[in-house]
């Protein structure tokens, strides 16, 4: 599904990713852990194609194609989804309106028919109930005045509706209390499927108690420096990242 080869990327001339190699097979959930400043969030932005990050070397093979030069909206329609650490607010635009615009934009890009309003409403209703997202919340402007938990639930709701092939979750646990974390994790787990890969980026092990990964990678100074099973997360929790300080970024 996803194969990253020797990926180098910099922002404002400063190199952040220094040769990332990573393979996430279809249907697997991989976690990336690492100290602050190791390049985890940069990796998520580069995978999603954010403007301002220069890929200076390497490849991102998604679904058999190198997408390094592909525009972010095309990657989205092809099935790359990023759950943001800090979801953005759009005043005056109802959450429902945004969801519909996004879903139909992707369908259109893939040559599929746009959803009718009743079809769309049915899908939203089904997905939102599982995530405790109320109708009232869907009518509010996107993320405006949402609590931390509401914002993250809304991200997972979008993921459920957009049905991506690859979901990247960037620090989805940040800003969540334990109850919100459980709701969000259950939402993510419900979306695990043999056709879908996930890349869970987190600083803390606690998220991985709820979303148990197939593999754990440790990132440091812009590289994947170690790969192991779920037990690696526990080891990191006990020992910290001191062993992986690496060269300063």
């Amino acid at each position: 599904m996803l194969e990253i080869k020797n990926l180098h990327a910099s922002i404002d001339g400063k190199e952040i990713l220094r040769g990332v190699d990573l393979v996430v097979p279809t249907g697997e959930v991989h976690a990336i852990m690492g100290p602050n400043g190791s390049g985890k969030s940069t990796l998520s932005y580069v995978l999603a194609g954010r403007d301002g990050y220069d890929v200076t070397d390497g490849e991102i093979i998604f679904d058999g194609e190198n997408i390094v030069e592909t525009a972010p909206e095309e990657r989205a329609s092809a099935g790359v989804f990023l759950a943001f650490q800090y979801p953005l607010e759009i005043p005056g635009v109802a959450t429902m309106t945004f969801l519909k615009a996004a879903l139909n934009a992707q369908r259109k890009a893939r040559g599929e028919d746009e959803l009718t309003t009743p079809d769309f409403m049915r899908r939203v209703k089904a997905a939102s109930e599982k995530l405790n997202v109320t109708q009232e919340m869907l009518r509010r402007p996107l993320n405006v005045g949402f609590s931390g938990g509401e914002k993250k639930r809304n991200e997972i709701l979008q993921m459920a509706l957009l049905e991506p092939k690859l979901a990247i979750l960037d620090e989805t646990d940040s800003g969540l209390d334990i109850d919100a974390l459980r709701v969000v994790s259950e939402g993510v787990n419900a979306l695990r499927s043999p056709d879908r890969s996930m890349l869970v980026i987190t600083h803390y092990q606690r998220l991985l108690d709820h979303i148990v990964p197939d593999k754990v990678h440790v990132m440091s100074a812009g590289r994947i420096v170690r790969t192991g099973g779920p037990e690696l997360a526990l080891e990191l929790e006990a020992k910290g990242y001191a062993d992986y300080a690496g060269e300063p970024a």
Partner: protein
Amino acid sequence: MVAVQETVDQVRQIDVDQYKYGFVTDIETELAPKGLSEDIVRFISAKKNEPEWMLEWRLDAYRRWLTMTEPTWSRVHYPKIDFEDLHYYAAPKSTAGPKSLDEVDPELLATYEKLGIPLREREILAGVEGAGSRVAVDAVFDSVSVVTTFKDELKKAGVIFCSISEAIREYPEIVKKYLGSVVPVTDNFYATLNSAVFSDGSFVYVPEGVRCPMELSTYFRINERNTGQFERTLIIAEKGAYVSYLEGCTAPMRDENQLHAAVVELIALDDAEIKYSTVQNWYPGDKEGKGGIYNFVTKRGDCRGDRSKISWTQVETGSAITWKYPSCILRGDDSQGEFYSIAVSNGYQQVDSGTKMLHLGKNTKSRIISKGIAAGRSDNTYRGLVSAHRKASGARNFTNCDSLLIGDQCGAHTVPYIESKNASAVFEHEATTSKIADDQLFYCLQRGLSSEEAVALIVNGFVKDVIQQLPMEFAVEAQKLISISLEGSVG
């Protein structure tokens, strides 16, 4: 959001040639010689078969204008206008004034059809289900009104809707009583010029207690080269009357600048309400800032009666320069004024617009919601005055001015003036300036929206409060227009 999708489709269709109203109608025109003199004023008056008193009124304005100088306080820059290099009268040869549709030049009907303004009543009726959403139209082409629809039906309700030229001939007593009573002849340089040479415009009179049975609208079109358009509109709502009036404007794409200096006067008597909406889409000039309309407009409403209400809603997307401050004089006790504005500027456009709310009566209320959107290399200024006079006890105002910047080469400015001579007045002012942030845009792109779709969505969210004030048919049109105006502003 259907409108967003429509917007985007429209943007795609239009592509490079984004100003779709830029065509020129090939029609024989009668022009006054270039320049301005007493003779030209007499010429215009004679063309319109005006009575002597009207000519005197014009000549008086002309003489006063000669002593005045152009205002320079607004935040707009342009080369000095040569007022001797303009035609002050242009009329399609075939039409001397409004008459029945059968007599209107087919070329003109085709022009309005192309602009999406149906003038044939039968077609309007056929095209729309239910009589509720019919709109009566007065179509003004260069200096003359070519046709006014639904006149007879309005007349049955007692409503007079015709061109101002016709009103001067047919209803001189009403015109004499109200013309210049809200915007005095010497109000400002452009208003005085307009008083001398005004060409055409609409006249509306709604008698006591009548609720106008349909929306009224005027569609202004400048066609002829090197022509100034000086529209004059007068709307009177008698006691307890209600009228909603819409105004739309377009012009061909031309390299040289064209002048449009209008005066609009509204008078609302006791318990009357006037709602005036504008969608202004004059040609804004090309990508290098060449050409476009200079739009210097004086619009003012007088809430002359107690409990009267005047509401201005404007969507300004066109013109090279917009200089416009639709205002309310809140003279009657408990009267209310409203100003809702969306001003979009792109390319090299310059907008200096806002309102004046003058509280004279007791317990008067006003509300100002202004949304400025600046993109490209444009400048967008909100300029407003809220004042309470000594006797205006209990005056209240709420002002909200938001600016949205797209890109990093445009400017947004807010210049609010507040004057209160009454201790019981309560004025509130809120203002924000924001930018379509890169991360906001990226968030939308990541969800699959294109840059254009993302900007349309964010902008439509930003202007929502004002769009909601527009009549339904105009709201969709306005949303489209805003997105088209901003096409190419990102990426």
